[in-house]
């Protein structure tokens, strides 16, 4: 589910109050466990609500998400524990005073009185961490800070809740010890074991979405930890997918602006130190020496260049093409290496493209007479966030009544025409815009369209006419005498 960014008008809130009033009696949280997987650019948060129905047939469970957390969230889905079906979820409103947003999750079947179930809410936060200190020398380690709310808010009474924060490495420089929680717990409010911090358990918390609760009970906790892999941010990804029936070919070209979101390089880059550290095999965590990408199987002539020509510092292992539909577990692995190691705060922009046989991703539906082509939204880059993505799909020339089905709604999409080699009227083009894509978002866009036979014939006709024209010109030129007076 893509990220929502709008505040509801006030009047909605008026409608909200009574509804909440009745909402709060329908459920009770027997236990809430929130697990925060800290990382570089991405933070995975899994919250499990063990809920008990207080009334018969109560089927709509309300989630409360604080505003700032909501700002960072780019992926949100709710499941029943142990089931794969995603529950329908919609934004019902926002409390202006507390800034809390409310989502209503539709349970598959209403719960009876005292029946229990477990809801698993999965969210991915982007840009939730920031490097601290903001600058680091070439050899220094990389430390990040993460801030979050201590308590999971809920419009319902909560029996017990705890928050686990897992850091990538056991090096945790500091973490907040919350005060004044006597109301909820008597022993130490936080315990650390290895790479895991546990806040809680906090017992019998009243319904916590009310303003005064947020005011005086809610706390902010900060974790300062060491991250041993680089913070990869893609500031902009422009993907162009061109479908060609003449070449039976699907060309995909990614235009990527890479940014190292880690601590800025303090002082200067010394090749000597870089080479020695690489030699001793302990290159600092905030350097991006390269990335390993999993491209589709069966791709040919992969190209990798930037503004000033080829980049010859990469290796590719292609896997053979797999027939459509069959579950393909094998990939062509590209060890992509920038021209220079990308240190903290540096940028590197490049273009990566390849051809793949059309039959691997396209099918012809004979009864509708339409083509169906599957185009992945992006090439997943492990633990990287894509701030802006633009996917441009170029259909063959003369394609008519086309339609597209993205895996999740785009923030904006437009249809234009694009003219390239030997085109006469140009090709229809679909462009989709996305924000804040994570590794969760690697879905597939399905495009359907119809290409009449005449459209197929356009190219050869155009070329043939051009050549005939040239020949005719040559003929006339040979036969016309341009001299003013005849030589004798």
């Amino acid at each position, binding site marked *: 589910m893509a990220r929502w960014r709008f505040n509801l008008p006030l009047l909605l809130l008026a409608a909200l109050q009574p509804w909440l009033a009745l909402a709060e009696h329908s459920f009770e949280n027997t236990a809430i466990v929130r697990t925060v997987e800290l990382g570089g650019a991405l933070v995975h948060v899994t919250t499990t609500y063990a809920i008990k129905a207080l009334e018969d047939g109560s089927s709509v469970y309300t989630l409360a998400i604080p505003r700032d957390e909501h700002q960072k969230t780019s992926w949100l889905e709710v499941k029943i524990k142990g089931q794969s079906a995603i529950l329908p979820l919609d934004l019902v409103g926002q409390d202006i005073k507390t800034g809390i947003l409310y989502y209503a999750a539709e349970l598959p079947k209403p719960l009876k009185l005292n029946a229990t179930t477990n809801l698993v809410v999965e969210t991915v936060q982007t840009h939730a961490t920031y490097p601290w200190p903001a600058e680091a020398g070439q050899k220094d380690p990389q430390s990040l800070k993460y801030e979050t709310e201590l308590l999971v808010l809920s419009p319902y009474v909560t029996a017990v809740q705890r928050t686990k924060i897992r850091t990538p490495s056991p090096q945790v420089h500091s973490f907040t010890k919350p005060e004044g929680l006597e109301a909820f717990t008597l022993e130490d409010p936080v315990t650390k074991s290895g790479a895991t911090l546990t806040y809680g358990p906090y017992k019998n918390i009243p319904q916590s979405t009310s303003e005064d609760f947020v005011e005086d009970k809610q706390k902010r906790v900060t974790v300062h930890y060491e991250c041993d892999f680089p913070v990869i941010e893609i500031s902009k990804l422009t993907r162009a997918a061109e479908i060609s029936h003449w070449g039976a070919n699907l060309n995909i070209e990614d235009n990527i602006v890479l940014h190292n979101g880690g601590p800025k390089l303090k002082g200067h880059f010394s090749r000597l130190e870089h080479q020695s550290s690489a030699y001793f095999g302990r290159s600092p965590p905030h350097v991006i020496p390269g990335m390993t990408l999993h491209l589709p199987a069966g791709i040919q002539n992969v190209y990798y260049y930037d503004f000033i020509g080829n980049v*010859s510092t990469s290796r590719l292992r292609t896997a053979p093409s797999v027939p459509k539909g069959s579950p393909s577990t094998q990939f062509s692995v590209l060890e992509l290496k920038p021209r220079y190691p990308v240190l903290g705060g540096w940028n590197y922009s490049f273009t990566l493209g390849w051809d793949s046989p059309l039959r691997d991703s396209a099918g012809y539906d004979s009864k509708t007479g339409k083509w169906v082509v599957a185009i992945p939204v992006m090439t997943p880059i492990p633990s990287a966030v894509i701030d802006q993505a633009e996917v441009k799909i170029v259909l063959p020339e003369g394609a008519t009544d086309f339609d597209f089905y993205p895996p999740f709604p785009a923030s904006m999409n437009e249809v234009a025409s694009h003219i390239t080699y030997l085109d006469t009227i140009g090709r229809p083009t679909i462009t989709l815009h996305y924000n804040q894509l994570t590794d969760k978002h690697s879905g597939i866009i399905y495009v359907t369209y119809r290409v009449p036979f005449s459209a197929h014939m356009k190219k050869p006709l155009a070329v043939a006419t051009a050549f005939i024209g040239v020949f005719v010109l040559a003929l006339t030129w040979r036969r016309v005498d341009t001299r003013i007076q005849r030589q004798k």
Partner: protein
Amino acid sequence: MTTKAYALPSDLSPATVTNTTSLLRIIALAFISGAAIASRLFAVINFESIIHEFDPWFNYRATRVLVADGFYEFWNWFDPTAWYPLGRVVGGTVYPGLMATSGVIYKILHALNLPVDIRNICVLLAPGFSSLTAWSTYMFTKELKDESAGLLAAAFIGIVPGYISRSVAGSYDNEAIAIFLLMFTFFNWIKALKTGSAFFGTIAALFYFYMVAAWGGYAFITNMIPLHALALLLMGRYSSRLYVAYSSWYAVGTLASMQVPFVGFQPVRTSEHMAALGVFGLLQIIAFAELVRSHVSSKQFQTLLYASVIGLGFLGTLAIIGLTYKGWIAPWTGRFYSLWDTGYAKKYIPIIASVSEHQPTAWPSFFMDLQFLIFLFPAGVVMCFRELRDEHVFVIIYAIVASYFAGVMVRLMLTLTPVVCVAAAIAFSTVLDTYINPVEPEAPADEAASSEVNSVASDVTNPSTPTPVSKKSKKAVKDSSASSTTGPFGDLVASVTSGKSGKKGERSFGVFGLDTRLVVIFHAIGMLIFFVWHCTWVTSNAYSSPSVVLASSNPDGSQHIIDDFREAYYWLRQNTPETAVVMSWWDYGYQIAGMADRPTLVDNNTWNNTHIATVGKAMSSSEEVAYPILRKHDVDYVLVIFGGLIGYSGDDINKFLWMVRIAQGVWPDEIQEPNYFTRKGEYKIDDEASPTMKNSLMYKMSYYRYAELFGGGQALDRVRGQQVPKTGPTLDYLDEAFTSENWIVRIYEVKKEDLLGRDLKSANAFAQGKKRKRTKPASRRKALL
């Protein structure tokens, strides 16, 4: 009846023969163009489609501006990033022909919905034009001898290394199109001279204009054609054809050439162009004289007339000289002098002398570039002397002038190559004509038998012998002269000196027997094959590397690309502010502007000696002296090329002495070349290096922390083959910003003034002191070692 060495098909109608020959000719030309283009693609195949070397990067950048902003924007394009802070009026200081050409091609292709990348157009422009050059050379040679010679010439120039060296794919430089324009202008000139048609004269003028717009070397045409005309006059070969051709060419050509802003009024103001003007005037006078003479017939009057003609010509010359002294006409420019004696350049314009392609040419490079054409060349010239028509006079003059210039400057090999190809083709095709021609002469009675034996009888009559070759032979037989002296030497003198214009006679001409023919023909073919091998080898090995990317080979033999330049330039482009000023030696100016897209202090268009000398001074003086200079020109980054690690010999330390010399030219009392040598007068970088050398910015930036790379071991500079001092130089005013993978490109950031107002040296010392306190144990450990 004539005997034949071998039989020829007799049942061919002349029409068939002519058609076949013309078809064959077209096919041959097509193949030649194909070969010409293909042999220039080594660079693209071995590396990639990339712009080569230095100047092409500017042309490429300019072309991009042209296609992006349109021609008028380009016309008055002021580039503030070059020659910072002066900037450069590009529109007025370039020869726009090249950019305009590729711009037009680009527009046409895009109009046809062929969105070809402008880079590929630029890369492939030179090969494309080389095929045109082959064609125009064919036309030119055809005028001199015949089609077969033309085809040979086209083939030669198609693959001869002397021309490929400047026109491989990616060397996007003015020469790429200039040679085609040169040959085509000359062809039109010859044509105009032969037919006396103003039409061809005007065409020549138009292509001359194109040439002026395309290459500074147009001065070569500007002086070649008048020289030719003058020679013809002196040979008493004045004709109305000459008058028409020259007048139309000069009038139209000069007016047209003045439209190029970079040229402007030079055609009437500078000495380089005065020859053309003078000959023009002389022609008018003579034409007038001829006119009068045709009407008057009094003997004395004619003598008077001649006297006055000579007098007037003399006066004209005096007038020009006078004007030169008055300063109305600019005297020869330094660059022009340096053609006559390169010592001049070394002394007064070191920038020119410092360029490697301005060095004199040793004979191996002649042979490398022309191979067996080089000795066919004189033979061809002699043959031009045999039939001394006007166009042959042209070739002869061209041959002398070009061979002199090619000897003086390596790069002018380019202008020599076409004439060599033409002359060699004439000689070679004459050989073939003579020995392919099946007609045998009548042997004297006593030896008739022996000749009959190996001569295959055939009753074809001469007119219907198919090949054009045998047609020529008819002429040859007819033209052969008849001074029947006996003895080989007598033969020699008689026959060599018997030109086509010589007296006709009935002396037997031809070759007896088939074996003799076979020997020579096979020999000739062998030579051609060898030539092809040679050209392929030279092209692929010597002329196809884009000096931007270096190739080495891995232990397993596979090609390994050394891409340091682009690595560093791209780093600049991506990780420095748009306005960061980069200082480097001028060789790299264009590349930095093109690839890193950052302002530069100096670049390869070396129009401002002082500015370059300033950079030279900064590089060759100590940090304390250089720092104010850097700050004044608000330089943010300094870029040096250092080949010591992988043995890349074209690096800055090897160019350093030129920086010193150029700086010395402007500040003789601050920079002195001798101070950079050791006491023994050697140029060394090891412990013996002179203190001035060791303190110079260039030295420090090149070897900063280089010794540490070798750990404890002895640091070696692989270019100089010398040991680098163990304790490397220290930098107080600069700071290493980036160093490429193989250390070829090293970029340093210029520190801003110290916040506390201390001078950076002491500030640095202070910081170091602190650090030392902190890392006590480390230092003690050092002490122990």
